[in-house]
């Protein structure tokens, strides 16, 4: 009887897991799909998880090879008669017995140890080869506290620079692009098409191609090493104008006519009627602007040539210029840089996906 119930229970679990809309059973293609998706999960997510976990490791733990998956720290004990806490070792004695001893100091290939349970028994001399450190999982916040403390690093300066560029550039982008889109969608005037073409033509001029002349213009404006030197060249985005124009075309003109009857100024019509109604399209443009400004690298690399105006991305990349890479701080900073966007992504995933699917912009 028990065997029978076990078997039905087993098959019902299997049925539950493989139950699906429409068809009754999963076939081999489903198993292949799941196998691929879980492989994808590992390849896509593990690297990031690895960096985050590593950022909680103490420097000693970071330097070891092969690396441990979780952060570990050596356990210590306070022993009577010693001011500093001593690190704990597991020692295998000659007769095969293991004991936990605290190390006082190392002398060549031997170490002076003491039994924390029985400090009165005196010091023992143990070969280092026989002693293994006792360790437990320990997440250290030391890299984060050091980064976040005002004196330890310039992190707050870089955060400010990145935030300033992102917020100001996005605000200007949204206002400027929606103004242009309003003109191109709600007015019939000579040169309408010409203006649209002029704006869309810039689609054919990627920023990487005009890097040198943009640097010249920024230099002429005296904005090299100034945050505005990165903001101004990026604010007019052809895809933003196009997306907003297409959206505004769907807003009925009667609304505008009615507002004109009431003697509303053109700016009021744009600001009070058109903008609120274009909110979904504005959100897409804003999200993509935030994304690209926060992550931007090549233009800041060329224009922002002093450490005081570095963005987070430049500061991160500059860890490499030094002869030795300080991975401990680098990993914590990488995590902190990636975090805000990862967090925003959870909430805004739908907007982003629809924005990409409908226009192919990034």
């Amino acid at each position, binding site marked *: 009887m028990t065997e029978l119930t076990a078997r039905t229970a087993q098959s019902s679990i299997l049925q539950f897991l493989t139950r699906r809309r429409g068809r009754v059973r999963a076939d081999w293609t489903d198993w292949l799909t799941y196998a691929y*998706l879980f492989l994808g999960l590992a390849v896509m997510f593990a690297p990031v998880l690895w960096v985050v976990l590593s950022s909680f490791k103490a420097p000693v733990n970071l330097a070891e090879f092969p690396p441990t998956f979780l952060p570990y720290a050596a356990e210590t004990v306070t022993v009577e008669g010693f001011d500093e806490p001593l690190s704990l070792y597991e020692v295998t004695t000659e007769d095969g017995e293991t004991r936990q001893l605290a190390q006082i100091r190392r002398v060549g290939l031997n170490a002076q140890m003491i039994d924390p349970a029985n400090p009165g028994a005196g010091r023992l001399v143990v070969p280092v080869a026989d002693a293994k450190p006792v360790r437990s999982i320990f997440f250290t916040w030391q890299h984060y506290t050091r980064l976040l403390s005002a004196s330890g690093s310039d992190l707050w300066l870089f955060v400010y620079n990145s935030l300033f560029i992102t917020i100001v550039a996005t605000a200007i982008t949204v206002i400027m692009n929606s103004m242009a889109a309003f003109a191109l969608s709600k007015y019939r005037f000579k040169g309408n098409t010409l203006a649209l073409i002029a704006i869309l033509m810039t689609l054919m*001029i990627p920023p990487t191609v*005009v890097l*040198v002349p943009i640097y010249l213009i920024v230099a002429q404006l005296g904005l090299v090493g100034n945050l505005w030197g990165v903001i101004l060249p990026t604010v007019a985005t052809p895809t933003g104008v196009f997306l907003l124009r297409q959206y505004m075309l769907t807003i009925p003109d009667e609304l505008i006519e009615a507002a004109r009857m009431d003697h509303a100024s053109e700016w009021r019509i744009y600001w009070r009627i058109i903008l609120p109604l274009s909110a979904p399209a504005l*959100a897409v443009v*804003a999200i993509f602007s935030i994304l690209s400004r926060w992550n931007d690298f090549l233009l800041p690399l060329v224009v922002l040539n002093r450490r005081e105006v570095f963005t987070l991305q430049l500061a*991160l*990349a500059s860890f490499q210029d030094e002869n030795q890479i300080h991975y401990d701080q680098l990993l914590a900073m*990488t995590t902190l840089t990636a975090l805000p966007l990862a967090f925003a992504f959870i909430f805004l995933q739908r907007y982003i996906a629809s924005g990409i699917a409908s226009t192919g912009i990034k």
Partner: protein
Amino acid sequence: MRAAATFSGAFTALVALPARAIEPVMRGAQKILGIKRMPWVFLFPNLAAVLFFSLLPVFINIFYSATGSDRLYPADRPYVGAANYETLFECGSYLDPSTCSRDLFWRALGNTLIFVPVQVAAMIGIALFTAICLNRDIRGRGFFRGIFFFPVMLSPVVVALTWQWILQRNGALNGLLTALGLTPVNWLVFPNSAFFWSVFVTVWAHMGFFTIILLAGLQSIPRDVYEAAKMDAANPWRVFTRITLPMLKPTLLVVFILCVIRSVQTFDELYVLTGGGPGSATILIVQYIYEIGFAIQPRNFGLAAAASLLLGAVLLVFTLIQLRLARGKSYD
């Protein structure tokens, strides 16, 4: 959706301030210029920015490419004609970069010519397979879509540093190999493996972007076509080659063009991951432009401008194809 509401609320507040400042200016403009000229007032900031930072730079670029010396200001630069282009193309033998006067340019060009086809093929193949898997009737679809997409949000610098931390000599990958009893490899020190990982990391970072577009394309294929195929007991491979591929062709074309345009311009990830090295094994054309124009002293703006115009010409062809393809597509 509440998060989206909060987001738009915060954003409205942010934009409201400058808008209030602009209002009197615009009101005055309307009084002076009249309602007929208002569209130009609305267009003015954008057109000015486009003119100043997109169209004008193209002409400056052409001017730079025809002038020499390391001076930045156009007035100080002597006219040299096509000399910059000649320098770039001056080679003993076109198959051996070391015989060229600008061997780095030829190496960057050669690397780009290998990198782009390999990366585009890998990117589209993997993105297509992923999109097909995600389009199936499976559990946790939203979760898996998020997993494949989230690297698109990460900055190139974060992506590069993450993988560098994994690929370094004492990194996680070598730890894994050691655990499996294999010999660790210093991945970024050998030209071939560094090149492989350059392709891998850029595909890892950007495939989610193309997966989303392809997924949207797949979802627009009517369900009943598949139902009919099931009635006829067609096997999955036949369904893929006879239904999915032909009906996805327009989307695939768009993805292909977008992917090429982006692949040719790859810079950020590789600059941080390999720095173009070892030697010049992974230097691509945009990094060459950056190096010659900004990093290597004395700065050679003329050569950088010439190289970027060549890059621009190639991109122009692909962008024109993209726009032609997009014209048939409705944006709703």
